[in-house]
């Protein structure tokens, strides 16, 4: 299959800070891809560019063959890219079900007068989105909390809710920003199974930023490594694990000649 996403020579500069320098990468349609790198490498900046929160200083983002950089986030959601956030962003004062129902906002059309008149279109659309939202909650395994306020969920469940909401938007490409952050090992296993299921059963392409190497190696078919705003490696998990520049970026260069003894 072809590439669903192509990033071509993207650079991003904030004032004097070069956050990304000439980064190119591709994500194959139907795959799970990983994006890793030390803190400050520019991973989230790249996510912000792909999801429309930032416009790159130069370079192109191509989604399904069309350039999409510079479009606002809500347009990208309509086109088929949605994301989760590193620091979970749920609609805290709304219920779990309402959070997922909101995911369908861009796929539904009823307006003010449909809502006021309770038209048949309105009833049909509400019924459909409600049913689909409940199915999705069931899919990620939090259906029993549908009427809780989002803020009352535990951390791990909030992550699942955020993922369910992103799926609900109908995104063909899901960007997951550190989905396993703050999870214990058992929760991480659950998350891995969930990401797999999103890919296998729902057929969505997934690009994830992840710090847990075991998890990202297990899930991804292809991994891109950023360091200090530049791409330093790209390849399958085995290639990445043995790549000298990756090892250097994570562990540091080995000292030569014993200039400093530990």
């Amino acid at each position: 299959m072809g590439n669903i996403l192509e990033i071509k020579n993207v650079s991003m500069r904030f004032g004097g800070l070069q956050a990304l320098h000439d980064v190119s990468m591709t994500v194959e349609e139907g795959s799970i891809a990983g994006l890793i790198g030390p803190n400050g490498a520019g991973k989230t900046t790249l996510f912000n560019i792909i999801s429309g929160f930032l416009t790159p200083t130069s370079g192109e983002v191509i989604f399904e063959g069309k350039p999409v950089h510079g479009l606002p986030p809500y347009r990208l959601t309509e086109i088929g890219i949605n994301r989760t956030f590193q620091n979970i962003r749920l609609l805290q004062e709304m219920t779990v079900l309402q959070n997922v129902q909101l995911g369908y906002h861009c796929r539904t059309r009823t307006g003010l007068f449909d809502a006021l008149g309770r038209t048949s279109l309105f009833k049909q659309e509400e019924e459909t989105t409600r049913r689909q939202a409940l199915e999705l909650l069931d899919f990620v395994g939090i259906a029993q909390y549908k009427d809780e306020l989002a803020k009352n969920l535990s951390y791990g469940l909030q992550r699942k809710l955020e993922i369910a909401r992103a799926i609900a938007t109908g995104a063909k490409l899901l960007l997951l920003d550190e989905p396993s952050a703050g999870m214990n090992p058992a929760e991480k296993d659950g998350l891995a199974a969930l990401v797999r299921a999103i890919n296998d059963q729902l057929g969505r392409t997934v690009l994830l930023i992840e710090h847990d190497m075991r998890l990202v190696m297990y899930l991804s078919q292809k991994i891109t490594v950023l360091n200090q705003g530049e791409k330093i490696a790209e390849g399958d998990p085995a290639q990445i694990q043995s790549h000298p520049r990756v090892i250097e970026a994570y562990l540091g260069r080995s000292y030569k000649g014993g200039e400093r003894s530990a």
Partner: protein
Amino acid sequence: MSTVRRFWPILGLLVWAVLPAVVKDPYVIHMLFMVTMFSILAVSLNIAVGYTGLSNLSHATFFGIGAYVAALLSIKTGASFLITLLAGGLVALGFGLLLGLPTLRLKGFYLALVTIGFGQIIRLTELNWISLTNGPMGIPGIPTARLAGYEFTPVAFNYYALVILLLEIEAVRRISDSRIGRALMAIKNDEIVANALGVNITYYKVLAFALSSLFAGMAGSIYAHYVTFVSPDSFTMADSVSILCMVILGGSGTLLGPVIGAVALVVIPELLRFASLYRMIFVGAAMVIGILVREGGLGQTIKEAIGRFGASLHREVKA
């Protein structure tokens, strides 16, 4: 539980509906009307402030616009009160769009300041465009509402306003429980997420603001026919602040909270009339304490109290 939850609003509605018919005291009837009037205003302001999270300190200005439109239209053309109701609402909505389209990108304090400025502009226009508004002297002699030859009494006005209030509450209920209501609440909760989920922020903010203004303008028309006199003094920023207090004290973002707030803030100052000069100190203190004790507003407290009451009833029935 749900039957208990429905029980209190229905009881409240029954009392509200029966009181104007049985009470003979014109003062009490007037106060009842004012409670209904301010309820309409608080419920409408809640659309913008409570559901969507927009600051608005000029709600009374939209109320005034509706009242002036109704006054001029009925004096100059003899239009019926139902026509002025629509016209007052639509003109207020128009001003809502005029103010909202360029300014709703602003947030919090900045938006609040802009609305204050807008209120001052309209007030100065009302004061100085003498050929249209008769300036500070106001417009007297507005025809009262008439339906098929029947001239509305204050009691009839009570029912007229109550009907509009109920229609408004039902409209707000339907909006809040819909795709649009969820979009508004999403904007209040987190604009960035709302944007990421495909919600067109500017469109929904302007929509909320316009709807809020529409109902305020309608309230203005009802009020103009009731008092038969409008002047710039009736629609000041102090009134806007009171309406905002009603929303916050009652519980912003809840369906009936603003009504509770309106009842409290219209009735309490009247009950304290014996304390003359000092009464507003008590009202102020009551507001501060009310909000400190309960950030979610009186509505939340009452809801929970009813929940407990319902649970205890349940136990007694079982025992």
